[in-house]
């Protein structure tokens, strides 16, 4: 800094005060993060090793890894893990593909682009629970608008029970989730798309490169960092899915939409088994921690100025 004098003691004091100042500025944030995130997450760790059965007196005998082994030897745990994986992979893939398409549209020089951008924002802004209630109505077997639309168009002969089978319900939940999340993905990818210099495309045109060739040799490589970051971000979010399932199916039918977060919730609060519930929560935390590590690495590599 230009005005800092070169006297060593002054400099040390200034340094010192900068650290002190930083500590003051960060104190509230650190208080928040430790008080309501770090402390609770440690506490959950403690519960995971004890047999807590009632919220009224949250103490229990130490059971070692008993809760973890009980949780992980249950069939319902592994099947909910499997369903979570399916939800995560399918929804993330669908969001990326559709999101990239929409980002392309939003980036194209067409009239009314601002209108399209405004319209695309809407699903993202709808609260998750409202979104779930909305799609539950759309897929309703008797009075839903999807059945009405498809029969009136002559595509269906009779009404289908969209949420009636485990497989079907899971896919319908995915549709609801994708509809709400695609705008987010599209906007994130749009930023990457807009940053690709126009000249590269001009050059490709002069070289008479085809549309596909341009897409694969310019767009995809340049978009790869953005795509991978968005993908990890979506995987992390999808792995935690709860709200939309609570609103649409409550984990049914036949456990078909019971994801790991939902299973954890029912174990803790419907079965009042806080010990196993905490162990399940920790298993989610471990998965998320691994994914986050990948995410943070990817962020670092993408010329982040902060880290």
């Amino acid at each position, binding site marked *: 800094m230009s005005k800092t004098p070169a006297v060593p003691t002054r400099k040390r004091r200034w340094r010192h005060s900068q650290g002190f100042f930083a500590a003051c500025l960060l104190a509230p944030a650190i208080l928040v993060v430790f008080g309501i995130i770090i402390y609770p997450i440690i506490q959950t760790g403690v519960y995971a090793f004890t047999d807590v059965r009632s*919220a009224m007196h949250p103490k229990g005998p130490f059971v070692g890894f008993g809760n973890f082994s009980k949780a992980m030897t249950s069939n319902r745990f592994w099947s909910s893990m499997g369903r979570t994986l399916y939800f995560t992979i399918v929804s993330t893939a669908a969001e990326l593909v559709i999101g990239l398409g929409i980002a392309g549209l939003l980036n194209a020089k067409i009239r009314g682009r601002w209108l399209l951008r405004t319209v695309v924002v809407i699903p993202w802004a709808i609260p998750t629970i409202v979104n779930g209630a909305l799609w539950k109505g759309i897929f309703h*077997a*008797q009075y839903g608008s999807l059945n009405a639309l498809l029969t009136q168009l002559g595509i269906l002969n009779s009404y289908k*029970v969209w949420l*009636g089978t485990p497989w079907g319900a899971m896919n319908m939940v995915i549709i609801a989730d994708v509809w709400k999340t695609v705008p987010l993905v599209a906007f994130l990818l749009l930023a990457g798309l807009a940053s690709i210099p126009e000249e590269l495309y001009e050059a490709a045109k002069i070289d008479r490169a085809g549309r596909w060739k341009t897409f694969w040799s310019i767009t995809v490589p340049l978009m790869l960092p953005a795509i991978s970051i968005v993908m990890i971000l979506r995987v992390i979010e999808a792995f935690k899915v709860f709200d939309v399932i609570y609103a649409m199916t409550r984990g*049914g039918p036949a456990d078909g939409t*019971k994801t790991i977060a939902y299973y954890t919730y029912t174990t803790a*609060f*419907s079965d*009042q088994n806080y010990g196993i519930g905490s162990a399940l929560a920790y298993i989610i935390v471990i998965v998320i921690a691994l994914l986050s590590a990948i995410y943070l690495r990817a962020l670092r590599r993408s010329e982040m100025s902060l880290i």
Partner: protein
Amino acid sequence: MKNRTIRAIVAGLTATVMAVAMAACTPKESDDTITLNALFMQQAGYSQEQIDEMLRAYEADNPGIKVKATYVSYEALHDKIVTSAPAGTYDIVLLDVIWPAEFATTNIVIDVTDRYDPAWEQDMLGGAYGTAFYDGKAYGMPWGPSTKFFYYNEEMVNAVGATEADLATWDGVLAVAKKIKEAGLAEYPLAWSWMQAEAVICDYGQLLGAFGGDFTDADGNLAVNNAVGVSTLAWMKQTIDDGLTNPASTTFLEDDVQKALAQGETAFGLNWESTLVDANDPDQSVVAGKIKILPTPAGPTGLRPGINGAMALSIPTNSKNVDAAWDVILYLTGKDNQDKYPTGWPPNWVSSYSDPAVTGQAPELFAAAEIGYADTILRPTVPNYNSASDALQAAIQAALVGSKTPQQALDEAVAAAAQ
């Protein structure tokens, strides 16, 4: 300068936090009116209007007490009681017959055995009296007996030349259902509440009873994977395969069944007492006056127990107004109050059933209740009922949607419940 600014900000933040904390701690009402918070459900049973009316009547008699009612769906009721328990939010909660064991062992509601009048054992119907008991102690006051009855669309039944007498057994019901379907009066004559929820256990239990089975064996362990349990589930699945049961039933709760009846889309459905009034209410029904009630049909054994769906009113452990809450509960469950609203929830009290002033308000319901309350099938009274029920719900559904055989599904449910 710099430090002064920081100090000012710190002071400002501290002041704000303290002001907010104080605002949060200051009691809202300073006069000596006691306000009780009560948690009810809005589903079967008394309607929200009826409960509000009862509470207003109580307040009129007891000027020092106000009761603020909160209504949630049945599906949200259990978790709400559990999550509000440490805070002591509620003074009165509605308790289902399957929860006393769990809530007693986790100390969520208080033991009210000492407040029981010994005469009640004689004065109350058997199906109501035991509702809140676990391990010999009472954890609430029953709010009436309850079971599922058989509702039918009289017009459809008559149109295929059948009568009430044909609906006394499940075989008879299926025979009439086939005719109704063939006549094109209803695409699916039967609708059930088979969603993954407690509702499917109630329907299954009622059928299980009719087929001569029970949930548990002599030792109290879940035993639905025996021959009767499996054939009951196979029977349910068969009605879907035969096109008699609406396949959307696996997404239905009781409300959906009631609506299917009220819309004239289905001929038959099991449901709670209050459906008789609601399905015949011209505001909600296009077939008002045509929905009739019968006791649940009998199975091959001639048995026809109804699932015991009674509920009770309890006081959460952290309530600060136990005596006032108990007074309100006694009023709500008292004969005088209950006799005024027999159509939502029939009264606890034996004497009400021979009082024409009460039965006259819903003669059909009381006629059906005579058989319906005589024999009931009880869901297991165990502390881990919820997790066992959850496993059983998933198993029943797996068989209904055809992803597992009934035997396989029920074996797994029994194994999961034993864990």
